[in-house]
């Protein structure tokens, strides 16, 4: 029986740094992600969580360090991969769910089109087949298939996020990166999104890096947590270790600051 992460890691981040001029985005970050593992990156706004995620996703160029990814083209350092191959790997083997669905969806094409576009970008041509898969994914993320031909701009915030998740998962990427997928949503809407995500994580054995400032969301979805402050990782461990037995002053502050209703 092999659990997640026992073989070669899916992702190995080594000494990754990003500076904006003299300002530190993230500094000397190293960690590994196993297959089927969900890692949460938590911390306050400005702690460098999103910068780290965007460097991993190839959306930002890192100043230093490596992001080794176990891709279909081998174990490659994405920071040193030729641009054409990098774009191809990013497009077909990674997913990126943004905080604002406006950044992650095409608002001028239909919901079904947003899902189908990814399939076509990866070479699928059969229209009927594409529609069938799109319909299945809408059902999976609990969007009424009757809304398939509607524009995402007519959707609620929660629906847009669920659509974005479907559009990212449809090509069966090896890794999913999520940047604050639940923030800005009403709590009831958030609960539904969390539920959809929880089922997907369990059912599809997803490998995921989840950036969030919401510790409840982090606990629910993540196996392990990394706590970031001022661009650095201050503490890491199994999710319950970080949240129930925080050791560092900053983590203790973060955990003790949550209001429990």
């Amino acid at each position: 029986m092999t659990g997640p992460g026992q073989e070669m890691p899916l992702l190995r981040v080594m000494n990754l740094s990003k500076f904006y001029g003299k300002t530190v985005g993230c500094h000397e970050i190293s960690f590994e992600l196993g297959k089927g593992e969900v890692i949460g990156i938590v911390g306050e706004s400005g702690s460098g969580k999103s910068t780290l995620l965007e460097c991993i996703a190839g959306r930002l160029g890192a100043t230093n360090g490596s992001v080794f990814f176990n891709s279909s083209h081998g174990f490659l350092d994405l920071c040193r991969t030729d641009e054409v191959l990098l774009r191809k790997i990013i497009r077909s083997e990674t997913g990126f769910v943004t905080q604002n669905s406006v950044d992650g969806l095409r608002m001028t094409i239909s919901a079904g089109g947003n899902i189908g576009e990814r399939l076509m970008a990866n070479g699928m041509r059969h229209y009927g087949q594409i529609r069938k898969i799109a319909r299945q994914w809408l059902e999976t993320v609990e969007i009424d298939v009757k809304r398939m031909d509607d524009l995402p701009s007519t959707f609620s915030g929660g629906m847009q996020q669920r659509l974005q998740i479907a559009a990212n998962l449809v090509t069966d990427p090896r890794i999913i990166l999520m940047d604050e997928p639940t923030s800005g949503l009403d709590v009831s809407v958030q609960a539904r999104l969390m539920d959809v995500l929880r089922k997907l994580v369990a059912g599809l054995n997803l490998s995921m890096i989840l950036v969030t400032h919401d510790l409840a969301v982090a606990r629910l979805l993540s196996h392990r947590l990394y706590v970031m402050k001022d661009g650095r990782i201050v503490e890491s461990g199994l999710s319950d270790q970080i949240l129930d037995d925080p050791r560092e002053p900053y983590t203790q502050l973060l955990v003790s600051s949550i209001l429990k209703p």
Partner: protein
Amino acid sequence: MDPILHMINISKDFVFHHQEGIRIRVLEDFSMTFFPGQATLLTGPSGSGKSTLLRMIYAGYRIPKGNILVRHQHEMVDMATALPSLVYDIRRYTIGYVSQFLRVIPRVSALDTVIEPLIARRMEPRKAEQRGRQILERLNIPENLWHLSATTFSGGEQQRINLARGFAAPYPILLLDEPTASLDPENRNTVMALVHEALQAGTCVIGIFHNPLDQKEIAGRIIDMSLTSGRQTEA
């Protein structure tokens, strides 16, 4: 018989950085060996380290000093140093843990909460649901509640959901944090029966039991944690 769990020189301090750096030593050089089919009942006042001990065995609390060796699929593994992937596996197959309170997740039905550990073992959903219904029935959760989220359930009902979840799948080691605390006599009897069945099946049961009745009914060793360690020192 070979031990299934071996705790060697476990110490645990908690340091509260935002409360004048106060340091509380909860366990000091604690060692104990546990065998299959054996019951261990932890007692002692609050703060004597009972829950801490259970959580350390589960690696939910870190193990800064000492070793916790667990027999997992015929190998002894140290929970203090095991890689995360191995800890997930141990939690899935070897160590079950029933916390004192259910962590309720909105929108997830009571039945789904109960069968989650079975689904995690890749049991076929229909079979898992069958087992889930069986254990919910035994713990007197009315059928009309099974498909509702436990969010609105009473404290006692939530604890029974938690217990149903803990007993749904068999484990070689089962950790129980005050399993009978909020139960009426009838449900307490059911839990006692479940504990006996687990022991019969060879499970090593380690639990916090305050009720003298529980202590009388479960044939096992009683460990008074206030005598083993537990002392407070200033930073």
